[in-house]
Every structure is written in structure tokens, then in C-alpha cells.
């Protein structure tokens, strides 16, 4: 446990501990965290209801079923998909009504896994639901206690905060992995003498390639392909946001700023490359705009000093914490 604490403090360096202030106002923070959980399950219900349209075309579908839904082959695709939809909507409804019951959270998660596995059984696993799915799995770990019981005992309050922090860290880890692979790819391509992710036309090439793959177009894609230099700063900023995202789990002063940046990134990606990450966009807003760990009022200099790498420019001019 001591080693974990040391790692956490090192990542939060210099100065500020990751959750400073949260312990002092643990009750209020755990209530905020519980609000996040409740909202997650209300929106989960909305997504489950909207997913009913996935049934369209199922009669003639010939999927290459992923492992969680291989049983559908035995039962018949049409009946199985209908059963999964009914199961998911019912479980999501019950979890939205009683999110403190672990069994209901687990069933809602199971319904989601089955529905998403079926949806991605047509030759390509999409990733727009992965974060939602992993956050749902983390929420299964929440205490199996009524909100009043959670509010009454310190260990339960702390457990709720820990699980919500875990969902934040996991989501941010996904972004850091994406950014990390881009940097690794850039080194590999630089060694081969190829254009890299740092090249001025990197974004233009990515957009053009994606739109050519699908033979589609997008509202802003052609513009950024034709004016590649305009997209360059955006691409570098996106790379920075992605690469260092995981550190933000340990630097709460940055959470709202990072979430805003990543949401803007997703909006631009949707408008240029037609990639839809609606559920992930909502997760960013849910987990970070009302984060129980973020300071109620972030001082501008504190935010600047907490920035990975760039924060070094301001750190020398004064103490990191106020």
C-alpha cells in the first residue's frame, strides 16, 4: 500500500497530492461521486433504448459472431438479438432505478457486453463503446449498499471515491495508450525516413486515408486535407492531450481543462473523419466536469504549473501549490 501511495505522489509531482482536499470533505465528495454513478445508469438506460434500432436488418444479417455472442448461432440470430435487446433494456432500467444494487449493475453491464459484441460482429470491432463498457465494469465494484449506508460509513464513502477515480484513470489511460502508440509509430517511421505524426501534413493524410477507406465524405475533412497547415497545431495539441492524459488522474487541477480539450478533439474528429464517439464524449463530461477530485475553484497559475512538461515553464517562478 505504501508503494502505491509513493507512485501516486510521484505522478502528482511536483508538490500537490492527487486527492488533496477530498479527504477533508469526503462526505460531500462521495455524494458527488454517487451522482456520477446515478447519471451513468440513467444515460445507460437511454443508450440501451436507442440501441433498439440495431435490430434493423437483423433478419438478413450474416455476422461473424464475436466470442461473447457465439451462442446466438445455436439459438438463431433474430431471436437472440431480440432477447439481448429486451434483456439489456430491462437490466438498464432496473440499474437506473436501483444503482446501489451490485447484481443489477452487473446485469446491465452483461447486457451491454452482449449488445456491443453483436454490433461489432460484422468484420470490424469498433471502439466507441469500449470506454463505456469498462467504466460499467468498474462500477460493478462499487459497494453493494444503499446510499444512506454509504453516507454513514467512511470506508464505503472512500470505496465510492476510489471506484470513481479508477474509472477516470482507466479512461485517461486509454487516451495515453493512443498517444503513446502514435509517438512510438513516429519514431519507427522517422527511422524509415517516412512522414511521421509530427509532420505538418500528418492530419491531412490521416483524414484523406480514412475517407478514402470508406468512400465517404465529412463536413470539415476535405477542408483540412486541402489546408494541411491549419490542421497541424490541432494535431500536435491532440497528441499532447492524448499522451499525457493519464497524469491528469493524479493532477485534479487539470481535469476540467483536459476533458474540455478531449471533447473538442472528439468533435473535430467527428467532423473530419466521421468517427462517432458519443458515449466517450459523454463520459468525459460526466467524469471530469463534475469530478469530486477537482478543486472547486482552480487557480489559473496552478493549472499552468500542473501541465505536463509545459508546466516547467511556470514552476520555477514560485511554489507549485498555493
Amino acid at each position: 500500500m505504501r508503494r502505491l501511495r509513493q507512485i501516486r505522489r510521484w505522478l502528482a509531482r511536483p508538490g500537490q497530492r492527487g486527492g488533496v482536499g477530498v479527504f477533508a470533505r469526503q462526505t460531500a465528495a462521495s455524494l458527488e461521486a454517487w451522482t456520477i454513478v446515478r447519471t451513468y445508469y440513467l444515460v445507460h438506460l437511454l443508450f440501451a433504448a436507442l440501441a433498439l434500432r440495431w435490430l434493423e436488418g437483423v433478419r438478413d444479417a450474416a455476422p461473424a459472431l464475436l466470442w461473447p455472442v457465439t451462442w446466438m448461432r445455436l439459438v438463431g440470430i433474430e431471436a437472440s438479438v431480440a432477447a439481448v435487446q429486451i434483456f439489456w433494456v430491462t437490466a438498464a432500467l432496473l440499474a437506473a432505478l436501483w444503482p446501489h444494487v451490485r447484481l443489477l449493475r452487473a446485469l446491465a453491464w452483461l447486457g451491454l457486453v452482449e449488445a456491443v459484441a453483436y454490433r461489432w460482429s460484422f468484420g470490424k470491432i469498433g471502439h466507441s463503446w469500449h470506454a463505456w463498457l469498462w467504466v460499467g465494469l468498474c462500477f460493478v465494484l462499487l459497494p453493494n449498499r444503499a446510499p444512506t449506508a454509504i453516507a454513514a460509513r467512511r470506508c464505503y464513502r472512500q470505496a465510492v471515491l476510489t471506484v470513481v477515480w479508477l474509472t477516470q484513470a482507466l479512461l485517461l489511460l486509454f487516451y495515453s495508450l493512443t498517444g503513446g502508440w502514435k509517438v512510438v509509430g513516429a519514431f519507427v517511421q522517422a527511422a524509415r525516413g517516412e512522414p511521421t505524426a509530427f509532420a505538418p501534413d500528418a492530419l491531412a493524410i490521416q483524414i484523406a486515408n480514412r475517407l478514402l477507406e470508406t468512400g465517404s465524405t465529412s463536413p470539415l475533412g476535405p477542408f483540412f486535407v486541402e489546408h494541411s497547415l491549419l490542421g497541424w497545431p490541432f494535431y500536435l495539441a491532440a497528441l499532447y492531450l492524448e499522451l499525457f492524459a493519464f497524469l491528469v488522474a493524479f493532477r485534479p487541477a487539470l481535469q476540467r481543462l483536459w476533458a474540455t480539450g478531449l471533447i473538442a478533439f472528439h468533435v473535430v474528429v467527428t467532423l473530419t473523419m466521421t468517427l462517432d464517439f458519443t458515449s466517450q464524449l459523454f463520459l468525459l463530461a460526466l467524469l471530469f466536469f463534475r469530478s469530486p477530485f477537482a478543486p472547486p475553484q482552480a487557480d489559473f497559475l496552478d493549472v499552468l504549473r500542473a501541465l505536463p512538461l509545459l508546466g516547467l515553464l511556470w514552476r520555477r517562478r514560485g511554489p507549485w501549490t498555493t
Partner: protein
Amino acid sequence: MQRYRRLKILAAALLCGYAAAALVLKLTLRRDAEVFPLFAWSLFSTVPAEDTDYAVRILSIGGEVLEPPLYFQQARFFFEGTDSIAAFMTVQRLGDALKAGDAAAIAAHRRLLERQYLRGRGVVRYEIVRRTFNTLTRWSSGGFRSVRPVAALSTAGAGP
């Protein structure tokens, strides 16, 4: 309190385990790097300035010869899902399987392609072609450096 300590260790293990799994997936699996729902999150990791892909070039539909042949992405008048990335990836996997001579994988990817994406128009004769291109040149002029047929197939079941 003991339960809470276990939860903290579990949280740390989940984060470290996921990162380790992502590394293993990326290093061991070539295309996509994932075993649902584990994913390495390798998205747009390289810049494909010079690229190679496989494509479906449709020669005839329901006995009617197309002159010139149409790429699947251009055949939206005939088929649904021509703008689907899943269809595109199915063709890439079929191309990889043809290159590797993996009969089981060829059969599986071909079944998905023909039953899901080339359905509803009678017998479709098509080729799998391997194309090399400069992405921005292709974007502006539509041109390829080379287009090489890999296999001639038909939804009626003629083998490669």
C-alpha cells in the same frame, strides 16, 4: 477497512494489467491488436503517406458485366454498407488470408463479405486487388501506383 484495501489493490492491478495487456496485444497481433473487449488503443498510430490496401473490384452483378469494373466503395447504388469501415476491414482480412494461403480464414472472411456486404443482387463476380498508392495523390487525382489482382471470386462459389 480490509475490503477497502483490497479494492485499492484491485484498482491498481486493473490499471497495470490493462496497460500490460495492451502492450502484449500490440506486439503479438498484427491487425487491430485486440481481443474483445481488450484493445491496445492503437488508433491512427502511423501516418499512411504511402499505403497499400486490398479492395473488391466488381466485374459483374447478376450476369450484367460492369464496364469499367466498379470498386465496392463506388457501388452504393447496388449494395448497402459500401461506406462501412467493417466492410473495408473484412476485405483487408480476406486479402491477408489470401496472401497467407490460409484456407479456413479465406472461407470465413469470404462468407462474411459475400453474405453481408455483396448480398441481394444475384451472382456477383469480383476480384480482390492489391493497390499501392500515395494517399494525398490518390485523394487529389484518384490515381494508384499499382493495382494487382490477387484472386477472382464469385458469390456463386467459384474458388480463388
